[in-house]
């Protein structure tokens, strides 16, 4: 397991500009989006509180009247509960990632994700893949290994069966969900991941194959995902990491030496 120092603010952090722009708009959609951002992003909540305190000119009057009804103390409690829930949801979607990386690494990344613009942009096929894309970008400058780990788990989840969205204990249990249609794996779709300029190999029977270049053997000879990203836990060496999707949402991974 590897623990990173607390993340410094970086290019992936939320753009307060988006919240400021929403505050100036006078429409229903902007007010609803502001409500959602308040529930997940501390940065947005701080921008809103500042703008309300500053008054005149920074908030559309109608929006200001709506936001005046927010109990900011209750909002803080609500946001903390939602972040715990998001953390649990992502963990339940892909337990092996939480076996590979420790909470000290993952929890700040989940919080950073909820506080970032990436949370509102659907680049990944699932919420979990979207998180991996965010985390990949957030750690890339500090640890190529960690970035590769997020790419591997993101790709594996991309091809896995879509999960039923069942709420954990502290959520209204009425509001459960059903899976989306899921990605049709017989049709190729644009991948949001960088393939490192490598062509994926032909994998007999696979519906889709994606690959990327890594300086570590991320997958062992039996196709097992890494259980640790500590230095020394993974064999160094230039590899093409291959993830293949088969009928029935079966996914396999391999590391081919380059």
């Amino acid at each position: 397991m590897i623990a990173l120092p607390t993340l410094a603010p970086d290019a992936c952090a939320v753009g307060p500009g988006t919240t400021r722009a929403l505050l100036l708009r006078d429409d229903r959609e902007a007010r609803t989006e502001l409500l959602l951002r308040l529930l997940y992003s501390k940065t947005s909540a701080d921008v809103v509180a500042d703008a309300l305190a500053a008054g005149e000119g920074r908030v559309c009057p109608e929006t200001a009247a709506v936001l005046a009804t927010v109990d900011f103390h209750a909002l803080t409690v609500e946001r903390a509960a939602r972040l715990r829930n998001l953390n649990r949801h992502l963990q339940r979607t892909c337990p092996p990632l939480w076996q590979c990386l420790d909470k000290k690494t993952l929890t700040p990344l989940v919080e950073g994700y909820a506080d970032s613009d990436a949370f509102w942009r659907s680049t990944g096929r699932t919420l979990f893949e979207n998180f991996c894309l965010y985390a990949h970008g957030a750690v890339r400058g500090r640890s190529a290994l960690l970035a590769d780990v997020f790419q591997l788990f993101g790709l594996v989840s991309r091809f896995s069966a879509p999960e039923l969205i069942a709420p954990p204990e502290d959520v209204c249990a009425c509001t459960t969900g059903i899976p989306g249609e899921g990605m049709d794996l017989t049709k190729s779709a644009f991948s949001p991941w960088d393939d490192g300029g490598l062509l994926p190999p032909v994998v007999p029977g696979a519906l889709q194959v994606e690959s990327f270049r890594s300086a570590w053997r991320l997958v062992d000879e039996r196709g097992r995902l890494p259980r640790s990203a500590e230095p020394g836990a993974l064999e160094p060496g230039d590899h093409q990491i291959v993830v293949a999707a088969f009928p029935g949402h079966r996914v396999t991974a391999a590391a081919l030496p380059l």
Partner: protein
Amino acid sequence: MTPAKAQTVARLGFGLDWQYRDRYPQSMAELRTKYDGRLSHLSVVSLPSAGDARVFMDECARGLPVVHHLPGVAPAAPGGPNLELYTRLEAVSDVLDAVWTCEDIGLWSIGPYPLPYFTPPLFEPELADHVVEGIRTLHRLGRYPFVPEIPSCTLAVGRMSLGDFFHRVTDGADCDLLLDVAHVFSYAVAARRPFAQVLRSLPLERVVEIHVAGGYIDPTFDNRYLDTHSHSVAPAVIDLLQEAVAASPRLRAVTYEIGVGLDAGNLDEDFGRIEELLGQTDWTPAVVGPSGLAPAGAA
């Protein structure tokens, strides 16, 4: 028939989640058998396909009327209801021969992802009017009545009260209402208002179904009620149920929503409590769809 059975009147139904069919204290099918003769109907959520719905009908419903609880059609969503999902789920309603469909009014997603935490709408007139438009669209396109449900609220934002908001929604859409008494309680707790007063502020004359379920007030923050379905029903929620049944003249069904964390003892105790409470009123369930509903597949 035993004398005990002869006295039994089916007064309430279970609210079940298909995802948990094997994870309740007993399986869904076993629960159905255990409470045979005491169930007026079933309400079910998260059936993904007509195939699953057929299994549910054969193994669980076994002749009981069924309410189809929808997940995430969301007439309150900024872009209006998800009509692709609604159309897909109508195939499920067909198999269930649903007496009506229902859904909590609120926000269910961030972009295409199901949000792992439901959000009630802004309680504002513009949102109520938007929900009205969405319900009208569902009624125009669908073959089953859509009944909006009062949502659970851990935080209430907006200048309207819950009562004013739902008066505006149901008047505007001219629709029935699903009253979840635990959700009414959650709003009262979040808004720091007396819960009986919140109840009386709602359009009770439009209520056709009541939900009741277990939950608890957050021990670290007493303005937050957690609607878990996996704890005992709070005494205040039982009081609200009693008052709601007496004050809802068009009530047809009372649904006890259960969660997977509930143990068999708690479930049985709360089932008995609710059954006894309903037995003390002169209300009886009438879980049938509206007459004149076109049968599945008709023109």
